[in-house]
């Protein structure tokens, strides 16, 4: 079983290495999600299973209504499953209460949204600081300035979102996602509202984060031009996975 090592495994380093590599950061087991709209039941996800390993960069693709948004909400612990299990770093998230989910979102998930979702009246600094305020974080100043420098926005720290370009706003969004040092980065159409140049910059930052720090990245998109920068593409249609393809990721050039 993943995550449980026997004594003999520890004594054999080669097996230990394999065990760690195979240890999935995300394990989705027969997950079904059903929405009730009045008397009608809508099956948004139907018996979906897959695993994502630590350090992978993958894209989830599918047209609107395919269930990819539902899948993203579940992966981001914003929603719970109707049936099946979701393990994030070995923790069964599908059995958790609201407050535990909030804690998981705070500690393990970094969100990047298509519409940035920054607090409009707060500065870049305050936006990045936000996740730290919902936990007993120490060294807040250091963490915020580190996250801002990771996305190259140190000099824009005290600007409000309205004073920043779309690309800069999205970089604030990424800094906010990174500040808690999450287990996974979940990006929902991160370039959807950007021109191709800014979009490329954002993809470069995300790809570099994955390659340099080994951060696990999941990008939800319907654009193949984005998906090509990931080394695995999961396609969703009508609530089921129709393909799961591994590829050699293209490197983002700007």
């Amino acid at each position: 079983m993943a995550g449980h090592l026997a004594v003999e495994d520890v004594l054999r380093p080669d097996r230990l290495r394999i065990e760690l590599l195979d240890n999935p950061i995300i394990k989705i087991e027969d997950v079904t999600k059903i929405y009730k709209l009045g008397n009608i039941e809508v099956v948004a996800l139907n018996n979906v299973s897959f695993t994502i390993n630590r350090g992978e960069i993958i894209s989830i693709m599918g047209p609107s209504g395919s269930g990819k948004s539902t899948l993203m909400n579940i992966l981001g612990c914003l929603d719970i499953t109707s049936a099946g299990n979701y393990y994030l770093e070995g923790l069964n998230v599908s059995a958790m209460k609201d407050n535990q989910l909030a804690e998981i979102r705070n500690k393990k998930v970094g969100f990047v949204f298509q519409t940035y979702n920054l607090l409009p009246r707060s500065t870049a600094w305050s936006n990045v600081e936000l996740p730290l305020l919902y936990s007993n974080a120490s060294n807040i100043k250091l963490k915020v300035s580190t996250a801002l420098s990771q996305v190259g926005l140190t000099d824009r720290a005290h600007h409000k979102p309205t004073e920043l370009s779309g690309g800069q706003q999205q970089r604030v969004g990424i800094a906010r996602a990174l500040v808690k040092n999450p287990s996974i980065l979940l990006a929902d159409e991160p370039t959807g509202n950007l021109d191709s140049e800014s979009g490329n910059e954002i993809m470069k930052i995300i790809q570099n984060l994955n390659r340099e720090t080994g951060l696990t990245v999941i990008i939800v998109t319907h654009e193949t031009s984005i998906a090509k920068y990931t080394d695995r593409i999961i396609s969703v249609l009508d609530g089921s996975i129709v393909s799961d393809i591994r590829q050699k990721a293209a490197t983002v050039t700007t």
Partner: protein
Amino acid sequence: MTLWATFMTALNSLSANRLRAFLALLGIIIGVSAVISLMSIGRGSQATITDRIQNLGTNLLSISPQPDEVLTLEDAFSLIDPIHTPSVKAVAPQISTSGTLIAGKERRRTQIIGTTPEALSVRSFTMKSGTFISVPHVTDSQEVIVLGSQVATDLFGDRDSVGEYIRINSKRYTIIGILAPEGGTSFGSVDRQAMVPITTAYYRILGDKTVHGEIPVQSINVEAHNHTLMEKASEEIQVLLRLRHKISDEDDFVILNLSDVIETLEETTQTIVIFLGIIAGISLLVAGIGIMNIMLVSVTERTREIGIRKAMGATKQDILFQFVTESVLLSFVGGIIGIVFGIGISQLINGMNLGNQMLRTVISYDIALLALLVSSAIGLFFGIYPAIRASALHPIDALRYE
């Protein structure tokens, strides 16, 4: 989230929409300042009434005859009796009538009180100038008069008129003294009265002709030796007068204890103060509803913000606490400003002249503290429902909200 972070977040959110925050504040400010100024007016009038009665003397009993019955001057003097009424210190019977005082071209119709020398101590009068009525004035029914301060001013202006004459019913009266003003301008104030010897009032002004001791008096003011002897004095007087009047059933007189009157009046004014407080409290309640209204609008407007915060790991309690903090902050700050305004208004209207009545306010800091607590509690109470609405939002729905 730490308390400080919550506080700063609330402050930022409120300052982001200053006009709206100000309008919500305004309701609380008006409510609290209304409570404080109305209560201080209430307490001020209470103090005025109490003071005025206490001016009459707290050791004072007043005896008056029942309707169609008679108390005589002799009854009054009989109360000075160390054996039957040891608690009685002094007795001042009085007759009240009215007449026109003429001094040169000035005429004033005033209340004329026939009284005895003891009134000076019993009613605790002080003389502005001259002397009070003395014993020979009474025994000889002399035509002398003591003027209340207002009467003296009306007739003679600021000039000291002691030694001058005035006329009542074409008889000449010598002014022997002028009383110091007692303050208070309500009906019955000694400032608007004139005093003559009780015998003079009876024989000369009323023009009656009875044997000296049988002069009927309207009331007898009795001073007890001290405040604690009031009950005892009252009982002693009752026994003595019943004996004198040979009464076996109902008393033909009434003994009024002025402390009882004060108590009754205080109870009455207390009711008025509470009533004023309730009216002002209603405005505070309305202000609370205003806060709730504004917080509900705020929750709807900031749905997306709530979604973002939840996605970043805010729990239900974090969101609840944030919105409650905002409304409590509003009502607390409004309460403080309201206290400042309320105290200002109270000081401004203190001493204001309303016709012939001076408005007096007494600022009570217990009321100020209470108003602050109540307004904060109102912020808490009316802030909870919008805060619960905010905290119950599902993160996905909140994030999707346009």
